[in-house]
């Protein structure tokens, strides 16, 4: 497993006020692969993923040190244009968060705020993105309907489509299936399998089976530290660290 590196994280530390949420994290994220982050609640995996597109900036009193190299620049630099960054590194949230607008207006939201006005272009983007998120067939006849009328699983795939419409390179997913039923979850997982051909994906999950099914590499987080990072199959079958072993074998969680 030696692919191209998309994002390289070195000595990342992060504090909320006096609380250190991330401790000296070092990870290389591979291009066009799914990287899973697992660990018990509060271990820092969500905080970590939100650092990659600087969404933690929204929190009061956040401080960070270290570097996250992406396309030859350090994302954590204070002069990083976070608006531009978030076009390249997009995020799908835990709870589906469609805007209270029509399905169509949701998908083309990104392109619109980035200045695309041409109706035909927007329609092409909408179709391509909805197809990319495997939801086109379910919604193509009701694009004008409110997105809030979709089921939870459909809403989440719509949110993925909305992200694809911005044409990012990296997709960050913060427990994207945790609020969904098993059938909707398996649709999201199938989708991940398709998406990794074109995108670099980092997914946070509390579901170890899910990590095992969808990812090629997995990182285990514990109390703000990155304990072990290895090809998924190795991490689950031959964990090197005692805590990883205890976690993946279900001794704590």
């Amino acid at each position, binding site marked *: 497993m030696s692919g191209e590196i998309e994002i390289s994280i070195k000595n990342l530390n992060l504090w909320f006020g006096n609380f250190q949420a991330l401790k000296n994290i070092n990870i290389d994220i591979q291009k066009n692969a799914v990287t899973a982050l697992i660990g018990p609640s509060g271990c820092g995996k969500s905080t970590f993923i939100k650092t990659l*597109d600087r*969404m933690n900036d*929204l929190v*009061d009193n956040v401080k960070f040190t270290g570097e996250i190299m992406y396309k030859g620049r350090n994302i954590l630099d204070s002069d990083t244009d976070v*608006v*531009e*960054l*978030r*076009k390249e590194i*997009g*995020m799908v*949230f835990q*709870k589906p*968060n*469609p*805007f*209270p*607008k029509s399905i169509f207006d949701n998908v083309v*939201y*990104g392109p*619109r*705020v*980035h200045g695309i006005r041409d109706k035909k272009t927007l329609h092409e983007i909408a179709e391509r993105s909805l197809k990319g998120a495997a939801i086109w067939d379910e919604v193509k006849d009701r694009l004008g*309907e*409110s*997105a*809030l*009328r979709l089921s939870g699983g459909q809403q989440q795939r719509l*949110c993925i489509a*909305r*992200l694809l419409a*911005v044409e990012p390179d990296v997709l960050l997913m913060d427990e994207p299936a945790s609020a969904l039923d098993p059938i909707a979850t398996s649709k999201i997982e199938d989708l991940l399998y398709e998406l990794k051909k074109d995108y670099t994906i980092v997914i946070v999950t509390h579901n170890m089976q899910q990590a095992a099914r969808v990812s090629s590499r997995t990182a285990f987080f514990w109390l703000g530290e990155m304990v072990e990072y290895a090809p998924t199959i190795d991490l689950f079958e031959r964990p090197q660290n005692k805590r990883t072993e205890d976690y993946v074998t279900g001794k704590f969680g």
Partner: protein
Amino acid sequence: MAAKRRETAAIGLLWGAGIATLVILIVILAYILVNGLPLISWHFLTANPGVRGQTGTGIYSTIVATVAVTGVALLVAAPLSVGGAIYLNEYTKENLLRKVIRQAAEVLAGIPSIIIGLFGFLFFVIYLRPYTGGWSVLSGGLALAFMVLPISLRISEEALKAVPAELREGSLGLGATKWQSITTVVMPTALPGIITGLILGAGRAIGETAAILLTVGGALSVPHSLQDPACPMTLYIYNILTEYNDTRTAYGTAAVLIIVILAITFTTDYLMNRYTRKLKGL
């Protein structure tokens, strides 16, 4: 058994307390409408009041005056209150400035309206006379704006606060700027609450008397510019009662005033309900 009887008695008393509000409202409305409605006619609404005690003609100019001062108050207060609420909720973190501004709004809301009127008199009518024309629609409207501002600021802020953080994150996560997120996602979602705040403020302005008593002038002719003096319906009721003891016209005007306020309340409720349902995709 005694405990059970006490329970029944308590429920009865609480029921009575709840019903009291309804009864009081109905009594007031019925009293005004029964006495006032017979006077309302097309002539009453479209003719101007007579001058110098020649009353019982019409109230046209007072309706115009009410609309005009309320309009001025809203035009001034709406951008300040909505803008202020957006600033407080979206652009500041929970800090001292934010607490101070919020407290200021509460204190402003608590200032007795006659004191707002007194300030309006000294500042708008006397000091800014070259611009406001002295006693005028503009002076009255500006004084009323001070009363609308805190109400609508507070309600707008609550409405913005009620917009789920996930929607903001979703928008920012797609590479929208903060301002784009506010205008395209946050504001439309909060709009029913913001409009409700403005309408409540407008209701306050329409019903206010003390703040305009000293600022608007009380002239019974139709105002033709913002610098003309005028006499809104509330002030007219006060004047004809205290100066001419004309209770009949007072009831008639009061009935019109109440109908206007009820109409605004119910129309807004209906429209906002529809908008909210549409927003939720129902």
